[in-house]
């Protein structure tokens, strides 16, 4: 199938026509294309999510590679990096290849597995990082996400070891001894609610240590879901010194604060926790400045019974794929170059996904997203493509709407429906 998209604005430029044929953009229309009216729409390079939990294998009641791929395509994503904290853990070539293959079979987005840093995420012994790198999944990003690689010696070795294949360690920064029993951000709200606090310093202490380790080893470090103003400062200073560090922020940390915990609804329970307004402000500034390189969703589906319970017993995490672009648009405004950088080009570069992050123009891969900035959507948890419904944005009106997503010339989502 080929397409002719009329009058579309590429990254906010003057309206133009895009022909999609044989996986590429370009050429002259022959008349047998399906015509899409692009009037008022913005064409963006397909979004890339560096931080997605697809839950397969192990928790197929919460999400599968297929349902997560649908959610991704509907959210404008063309590639997602699947976190390793599945059951079994993605700590061998066998498991990462399984996830990679499931992604190919679903065929809606490129599912790029992330490999675990340590065996079983236990933080004790390095997983076979090289075997995962050489596997069909060609793993380049390694993370124990959900757990922090807290042993400094192990973290140092992991950073060094993956240099051999240009890998990167993505750290979930949480000093576990400072967050024992932690339920939410430590501050005024946790004091009032009687919930054990997760202090900002537990994140900042690990990031400070890790940028020093990255500096010492000359290796690449990526910091997952930065959530505090202090973390932004540490990363800013490290970058000024030339440390090879990149960082991500989630849509929810750009929008929501710890006040949301007030009713004890665990849909707002997430790790790292929602912080304060001054943290939100610093994260937004950091994202605009480029101290924070990318937005990543930390899409974390959970089955109903894992959220429909007491706050302390609920699992942390929230859905993100289908709402991310609207939130980032609401935060950054119609700066399409900036959005393309933070949500496509830079995450593609960090993950080593060469086919992604290209501006939709003649000769480029037809891997892009059409976004209607004039539309508004009201988030309906029941209408999401994800198997789970733990969105913190239920009933919220978000600006913009993903109209269509294309992956190598194949339309994967259109008008609110995934192609399979």
């Amino acid at each position, binding site marked *: 199938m080929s397409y002719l998209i009329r009058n579309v604005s590429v990254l906010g430029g003057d309206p133009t026509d895009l022909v999609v044929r044989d996986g590429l953009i370009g050429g002259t229309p022959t008349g047998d294309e399906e015509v899409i009216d692009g009037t008022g729409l913005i064409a963006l390079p397909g979004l890339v999510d560096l931080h997605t939990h697809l839950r397969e294998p192990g928790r197929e009641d919460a999400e599968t590679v297929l349902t997560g791929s649908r959610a991704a395509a509907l959210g404008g994503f063309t590639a997602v990096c699947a976190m390793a904290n599945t059951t079994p853990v993605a700590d061998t070539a066998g498991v990462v290849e399984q996830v990679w293959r499931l992604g190919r079979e679903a065929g809606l987005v490129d599912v790029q597995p992330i490999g675990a840093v340590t065996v079983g995420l236990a933080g004790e012994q390095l997983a076979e990082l090289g075997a995962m790198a050489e596997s069909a999944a060609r793993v380049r990003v390694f993370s124990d996400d959900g757990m922090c690689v807290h042993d400094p010696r192990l973290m140092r070795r992991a950073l060094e070891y993956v240099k051999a294949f240009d890998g990167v360690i993505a750290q979930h920064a949480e000093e576990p001894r400072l967050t024992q029993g932690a339920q939410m951000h430590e501050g005024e709200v946790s004091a009032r609610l009687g919930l054990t606090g997760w202090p900002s310093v537990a994140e900042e202490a690990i990031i400070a240590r890790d940028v020093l380790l990255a500096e010492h080893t000359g290796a690449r470090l990526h910091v997952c879901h930065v959530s505090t103003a202090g973390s932004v400062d540490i990363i800013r200073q490290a970058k000024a010194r030339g440390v090879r560090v990149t960082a991500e922020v989630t849509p929810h940390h750009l929008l929501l604060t710890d006040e949301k915990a007030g009713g004890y609804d665990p849909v707002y329970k997430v790790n790292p926790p929602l912080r304060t307004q001054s943290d939100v402000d610093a994260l937004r500034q950091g994202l605009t400045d480029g101290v924070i390189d990318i937005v990543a969703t930390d899409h974390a589906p959970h089955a109903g019974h894992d959220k429909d*319970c007491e706050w302390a017993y609920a699992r942390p995490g929230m859905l993100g794929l289908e709402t991310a672009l609207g939130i980032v648009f609401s935060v950054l405004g119609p700066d399409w170059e900036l959005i393309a950088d933070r949500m496509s080009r830079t995450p593609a570069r960090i993950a080593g996904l060469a086919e992604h992050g290209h501006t939709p123009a003649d000769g480029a891969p037809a891997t892009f997203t059409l976004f209607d900035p004039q539309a508004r959507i009201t988030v309906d948890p029941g209408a999401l493509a994800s198997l789970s419904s733990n969105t913190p944005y239920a009933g919220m009106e978000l600006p913009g709407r993903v109209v269509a997503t294309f992956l190598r010339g194949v339309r994967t989502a259109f008008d609110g429906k995934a192609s399979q």
Partner: protein
Amino acid sequence: MIKHLLSAADLDAPTATLIHDIAAEMATVAGREVKKLPTLRGRTVVNLFYEDSTRTRTSFEVAAKRLSADVVNFSAKGSSVEKGESLKDTAWTLQAMGADAVVIRHPASGAPNRLVNWVHGSVLNAGDGTHEHPTQALLDTYTMRSRLGTVAGLNVAIVGDVLHSRVARSNALLLHTLGAKVTLVGPPTLVPPVFETLTPDVRVGYDIDAVLPEADVVMMLRVQKERMNAAFFPSWHEYSRRYGLDAARVRRLPDHAIVMHPGPMNRGVEIAPDVADSPRSTIVEQVANGVSVRMACLYLLLGGRS
């Protein structure tokens, strides 16, 4: 009128005072030969207790029975709750039983806030995790009023493990509402400065001896051994020496000042035995007042006055 009692912050001054007034009326019932009122006949009150707390459960049970309510004790021990039934499923069961009120004690902060989503009746928080225990604050302020004539204008020192104390939170909130001045006292590990944001005028102090000469009320909190293991303080001995209320410290108090403790006490740790048993101590009255105040709460929440 309020439907649920989840937090002391749910109470404005007129409502709290009304509860105190009704409690005073209820207290006269306790002196009668027949200690029963027909007020809640035909209504069902469920005591849903996920923690062992015989004293609080018994207090609510006696209160409900004195108002002629049918009382169902649904304790976590030996029930389907222990077999891992979720709070939501349990709530649906209680709903099917026609519970008009559920009194819940739970180890997780905010469990009562969740419960209101799943039952139609009133929910009374009888202590949730390290969050709140609003009826305790009502009975403590009732006790202050009985002993000292008023709550407004009192200086109240709350001493001990404020961080983990639902009693401290509820009292700090209600005392503020009723016009008393609260000072939270303890080691900085257990009384972090952030507690100064709990109400507009609550203060935090680390020196109990500096606070006592101004105090009309000293409320001692129970300290738990597991806090020592988590490095909140070095030893029982040091805790007791720095923050325990002994006879020497009591002498620093004004003559009229009273000593309170929500129980159960660690005699010899946060409070010396002779202080606990002295005429200043209200500890036994607090227990008796608990029944009257809980009668008043059930009466008000279940629409006894309407």
